[in-house]
């Protein structure tokens, strides 16, 4: 049963990823990316990470994608796709992409997993609660990255406002 769900959502994710790269209209690409995000969220649920799945849908499909669609709609008539500097760019990209994927598949298919060493088996996660467990880790062991992330968000907000402001008339 898990296998069927995995293959279904894996197929959807790969098809949508290919669609995102291949579709001409950028709005269609953005919608394909939304399908990828949601199928990956389904994968996270399969991997006993429901909190991350919901966070993924909320943040990626719900905020980041909306931002992309706004900017695509804003800039769409003016985006001028140049021809590209290298004539053979597509061929070379396809070649290197194929090399990358073959290398990754060969290396990862033969990789041996180290033995499980933590305490959070899926049963334990179901017992304690995924949100509670992630929250406990986030506020004890990972407190410094958490605080730095909040600082990063502040810097990003200020930066976006400064960059997107129209020039003041002097």
């Amino acid at each position, binding site marked *: 049963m898990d296998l069927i769900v995995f293959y279904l959502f894996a197929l959807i994710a790969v098809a949508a990823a290919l669609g*995102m790269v291949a579709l001409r209209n*950028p709005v269609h*690409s953005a919608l394909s990316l939304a399908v990828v995000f949601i199928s990956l969220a389904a994968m996270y649920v399969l991997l006993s990470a429901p909190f991350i799945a919901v966070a993924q849908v909320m943040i990626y499909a719900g905020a980041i994608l909306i931002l992309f669609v706004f900017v695509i709609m804003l800039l769409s008539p003016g985006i001028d796709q140049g021809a*590209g500097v290298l004539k053979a760019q597509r061929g070379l990209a396809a070649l290197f992409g194929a090399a*990358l994927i073959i290398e990754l598949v060969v290396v990862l298919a033969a990789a041996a*997993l180290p033995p499980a*060493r933590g305490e959070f088996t899926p049963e334990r996660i179901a017992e304690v609660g995924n949100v509670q467990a*992630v929250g406990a880790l986030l506020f004890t062991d990972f407190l410094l990255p958490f605080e730095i992330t909040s600082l990063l968000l502040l810097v990003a907000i200020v930066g976006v406002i400064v960059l997107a402001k129209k020039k003041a008339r002097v």
Partner: protein
Amino acid sequence: MLTVNHFILLSAIVFSIGAVGVLVRRNPLVMFMSIELMLNAVNLAFVAFSRYLNNLEGQVFVFLILTVAAAEVAVGLAIIVAIFRARESVDVDEVNELKG
């Protein structure tokens, strides 16, 4: 029997598709979306390992990556909009100098 290798292979495939997308597409917004696709593939790898090593740190890291990706998208899109305002076209091959 679902093993970690299934998820890691899927993550590798999606990552490669994103990498090829960055190389092939010329539209800067689609290039940016391909980068987000690569980030998502890495997130999947993290969560898969977190599940199969019974360790929750992978999920915490994914949460932090989610946040950083959101901040990065906001700033990156603001930069693209600013470039578009200054030049009236966004050809990624023209934007190769820091001077405006």
